[in-house]
């Protein structure tokens, strides 16, 4: 394949532009999202559970459950997704338990984080690594 000099210069500029993008952009956003939810408060590492498969059958539809006794809300973040927010479960007065199950999309192998806001004003955090494979012979 022969590139003209113009094309090569353009490719080079593009490569430079890519390397100038902030690396770990989503990591910064995750911390910001957590800080917004907790107001910067400390998070205990017990009190909220996240149930998820170790290996997702398919990253497009991954079943997860969250539970936190005494929680008023639980926020879930997919730290490796281009946009990390997954959802926030707010429990009302008639919630039968402080738990919920849903199905989420994961772009790649990553940590999924669940943060619970408890009724007493404290917070709890947990995370689980979910492996997402791509490249089957899927038809």
């Amino acid at each position, binding site marked *: 394949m022969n590139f003209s000099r113009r094309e090569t210069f353009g490719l080079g500029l593009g490569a430079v532009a890519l390397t100038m993008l902030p690396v770990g952009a989503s990591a910064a956003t995750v911390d910001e999202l957590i800080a917004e939810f907790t107001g910067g408060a400390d998070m205990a590492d017990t009190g909220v559970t996240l149930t998820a498969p170790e290996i997702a059958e398919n990253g*497009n*539809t*991954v079943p997860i*459950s969250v539970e936190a006794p005494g929680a008023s809300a639980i926020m879930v973040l*997919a730290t490796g*997704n*281009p*946009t*990390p*927010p*997954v*959802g*926030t*479960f*707010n*429990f*009302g*007065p*008639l*919630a*039968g*338990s402080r*738990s*919920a*199950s*849903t*199905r*989420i*999309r*994961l*772009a790649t192998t990553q940590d999924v984080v669940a943060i619970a806001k408890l009724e007493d004003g404290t917070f709890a955090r947990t995370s689980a690594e979910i492996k997402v494979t791509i490249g089957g012979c899927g038809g």
Partner: protein
Amino acid sequence: MAEGVTPRVKVPKKAEAGEVITIKTLISHPMESGQRKDGDGNVIPRSIINRFTAEFNGESVIDVKMEPAMSTNPYFEFDATVPEAGDFKFTWYDDDGSVYEEVKSITVG
């Protein structure tokens, strides 16, 4: 309005007063995340259901803020306390302003 949006909800027909029941909800919706591109390389704009609520006789059971990482055909399973006979109302709010609703009655005794 997204086309052909169909809810599907499992609520027991009856319960004891004060019993905790499990509810399952599904709704068909593409949940276009805003990450995909079309054949010409243009980004397909985000168009998702951004909120789901379940209420019983007007009181909140659960209120979910939904983001693009929720899968297509969103599914929720959660528990509700049933103090008396009445109606569960499930509401899904679409980015495009549409609102989808489903009501299920439950008797007690």
